[in-house]
């Protein structure tokens, strides 16, 4: 045996064959099988031409270093999508071009949020553009890089220019209007295209594993209010704060304030619930609000928690609502067609 390994041809051939054999078993065959046995979902929409250019920019700028695009089949990933990602979600992705490889962009780091479903979670073009110009305009604690080179500053923008509402302190002394370049618009188009495709009717989605036990504290009478208040703040941070800001003052010219808002503090609960569930686009001076509640599948408890948080924060002092009230309104509101 020892003489066998004293022969360099035999030694290195043996090692190589072992390695190549294992490689074929754990990499090449599984890769080929997955490539051949999966097809995109029937209702999956292919990327538009703009979104495709946006994806190229996403790859070029290394966004995948911080943003994953995979909803794992574990309970904690529910925030990022309504179902775990499956092979079919990636099946339509093929080689980019002669020079560049396939980009499934699954990612291995989540320094920033997962983007699998960002098109549903944050569809607002205005928000995305402002955020891209400098993320800290809308999310103070963000450490995402700013991409000002995807914008130009024009003194007199033409009619077709997409103007981005950037507060003066972020312009670093420059004067004029911030106008999005094609690149910025492509990139936003790609982000807006990131929506989880619904499974065909009757197909059960894979389950989320490692389910969290439902917090028992909410069941106890006295604690319920406290629990839902905390809950309301968390829900607000996750779903609303990016636009309406932590201080409830919104962003002038882009997102309306909730502090002192007649809708928030008033008695027309139906309108209020409707806006949360279905979004809002009635005021020209502000951006479009997406159907946040519908996207996140809010229950009456969650809607009530958010409303109560908003009605009692930043100096707002309106009467608290109960989940029972909201349930009734939700039943009515749900019948309305989504805008």
């Amino acid at each position, binding site marked *: 045996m*020892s003489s066998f390994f*004293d022969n*360099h041809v035999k030694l*290195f051939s043996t*090692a*190589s064959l*072992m*390695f190549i054999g294992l*490689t074929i078993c*754990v*990499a090449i065959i*599984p*890769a*080929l099988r*997955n*490539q051949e046995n*999966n097809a995109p979902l029937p209702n999956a929409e292919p990327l538009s031409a703009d979104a495709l250019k946006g994806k190229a*920019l996403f*790859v*070029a*700028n*290394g*966004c*995948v*270093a*911080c943003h994953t695009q*995979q909803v*794992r*089949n574990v309970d*904690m990933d529910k925030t990022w999508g309504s179902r*775990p*990602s499956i*092979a079919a979600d*990636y*099946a339509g*992705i093929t*080689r*980019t071009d002669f*020079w*560049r*490889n*396939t980009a*499934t962009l*699954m990612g*291995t*780091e*989540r320094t920033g*949020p997962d983007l699998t479903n960002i098109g549903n979670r944050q569809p607002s073009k205005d928000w995305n553009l402002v955020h891209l110009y*400098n993320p800290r305009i809308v999310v103070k*604690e*963000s*450490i995402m*890089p*700013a991409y*000002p*080179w995807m914008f130009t500053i024009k003194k007199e923008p033409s009619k077709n220019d997409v103007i981005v509402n950037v507060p003066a302190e972020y312009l670093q002394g420059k004067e004029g209007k911030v106008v999005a370049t094609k690149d910025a618009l492509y990139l936003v188009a790609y982000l807006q295209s990131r929506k989880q495709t619904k499974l065909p009717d009757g197909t059960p989605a894979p389950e989320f*594993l490692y389910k*969290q036990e439902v917090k028992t504290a909410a069941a106890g009478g006295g604690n319920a209010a406290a629990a839902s208040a905390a809950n309301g703040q*968390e829900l607000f*941070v996750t779903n609303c704060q990016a636009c309406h800001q932590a201080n409830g003052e919104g962003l002038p010219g882009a997102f309306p304030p909730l502090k002192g808002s007649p809708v928030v503090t008033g008695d027309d609960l139906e309108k209020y619930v409707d806006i949360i569930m279905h979004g809002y686009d009635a005021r020209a001076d502000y951006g479009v609000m997406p159907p946040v509640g519908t996207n996140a599948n809010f229950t009456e408890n969650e809607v009530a928690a958010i409303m109560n948080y908003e009605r009692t924060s930043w100096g707002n002092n309106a009467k608290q609502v109960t989940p029972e009230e909201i349930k009734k309104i939700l039943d009515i509101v749900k019948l309305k067609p989504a805008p």
Partner: protein
Amino acid sequence: MRKQKVLPLFFLFLALIFTGKIVSAQSMTPSSFSFSKGEAWLCMMIIISLLLLVAALTLKRKVSQLRENNRRSMKKTNEEVFHEYSKHLNSKQIDQLLKMKNKKGPGNTGTALLALLLSSVLVLFSPSSVMAQAPVKADGTSLFSESGIIITLVLILIPVLAGFVLLIVKLRNAVNKQGNRQRIDEAAKLATYLENLTDEERERLEKRKNALNFSLTHNELSGSQPAEDERGLLDISPETGYNVVAHKKRALPRPNIEPELSRMVLWYLGCATFWLLFGTTIGEYLGIKFVAPDADHVSWLSFGRLRPVHTNAVFWGWASLGMLGLGNYIVPRVSNTKLYSIKMGWYALILINASVLIGSICLMAGINNGGGEYREYIWPVMLLFGIGLALTLINFLKTIAARTTKEIYISNWYMVSAIIFTIVISLTAYLPFWQDGLGETIVQGYYMHQGVGMWFMLFTLGIVYYFLPQQLNKPIYSYSLGILAFWTQILFYTLIGSHHFVFSAIPWWLQTVAIVGSMGMAIPVIAGTTNFLMTFKGGWYKVKDSYTLPFFLVGIIFYFTGSMQGTAEAFRFTNLIWHFTDFTVAHSHLTMYGIITFFIWACTYAVVPRLTGKEAPQILVGAHFWMALIGLMFYTIPLMYGSTLKGLMWLNGKPFMDGVVLMMPYWLWRAIGGSLMWLSHVVFAYNIYLMYRKSKTVDVRESAIQKMEEDNAIESVPAI
């Protein structure tokens, strides 16, 4: 004294509680003990408590000895004891005694008693407060019942236990000091006794002194000639330099290496150093960007583009060139022949440098293969690297084929296989036939981990198998362990790639295979670590006066802890907490930096003095070592701690931004640690410069000989 007694009682109490718990669990039903449950953790705490108990008992014994002494000295102040003492005085003592007889007695030496007592009490109390916290965790949440977490905790406990051992040693010293104090008291009494000796006794002592003073002349056998160092065994240099750091041995001069090979190896290592400095400067800047995201707004310098520039430059530039340079030195040495072709070596060097240079520019310009980690260079760029590898492979194989030794030394097994495997890995990763859809992800998992394990780790192990025995000047402990590690590494490492995509859409069975493979990695890692550490056996004293061995030692320690941490991270539960967080970043630095980089440094400091004949100043090597090591700790520990908290936050459904806010201070620590690491690289680069540069100061001895030679030559000319 009372307080010292409380301690063992406390630990006894602890131990009782825990054993009681176990016993009661066993009394009725079959034991539910299982290593996957909290009991394993509990069990470990019990073992630690037992250890503490043993330590406490030993201390107690010491203390009671002290007391015994105390009591005895109280009782027997009588003549007998002192007479006994005086009978056993040695000659010098007798001499002094007799001289002093009419002068004064010894003075009072008892000082600093209070400080000593205070400090010992403090020391005794600190372990109780530290250890008291640990068991509290034991009966805590399910977190501690997960094997991945347990493994990590054990890895963390290793240094804690080492610290504990140190504590015991210190305690023993304190107790000894206490004992000495009593002895000094006794000495004082003895002195008073000796003051009043009778004449008779004095005479007896005089006699005794003469008897004791009898000695041989010590040259009965050797004669009276002065000693002579005929074999040049002694080399005592009068030049000592600054007395700031410990003096280490200088590198031994070795048989000369062919100048062409030497020049090439030096170029490899020089280029590698450049890429290290370049790559980590970028890395340092990236670390700063985590705390100051608006540091610049230049597209070429944005985070997403620079990150792959950093990783690829340190991978393919620094580590790869460093390894290949050392490989070019080792393969001809262990084959006992010349390198097949120096030219091929140069081509490979040029190609790889070109690959990293063009690749970095491409990435900064936004030309990226597809975002897969370490696969960001587009194929034409990576092809240059691949050709460089192929050339090196041919060169090495031809050299080995022409070897004059019968067997192939284990270093060559590792290094040549690493090159072959890496060519296979690159082909698998860059050929387009199996890359659509999830195929890309499966290949990505395979590629990113094989790149690390089959290229860097395998090759570096080969280097260590040559340089470690050489630096210790003894053979490797076990050749067979090295071979076992070799085959098991191929078997298990190849399987583990997809553990980067646990819970993703890739097949469940593939994820399981990866996790099992990660566990199997314990075999090669433990075999390798054992082999290296056992090679140190009997040579530990050499660490003290060598400046390369500390680098090896750090590399070996991280080889064990870093690799086992990788295993722990692969489990499904630990994936819940740590996946997608900066824990992975900390892990990759512990391994790529703690293992690979430290080993390459060790070997660089070992080989360059042999090639250039010059050494770096030891104070700078020391500065390099400590800044790199401390920097790495500052870098990784806060990141691991913070990411664990962040993972738990995610698990509890907290808003995503809360995690970002939480990480801020840990990212700051990372930047600070990174800065130290970066600074150490500047020192390293300067050391390389010092070792490379042509000497400008005149060596007095060397030039004296030269001058005489020249003079001789001139004198001999007219004679012709």
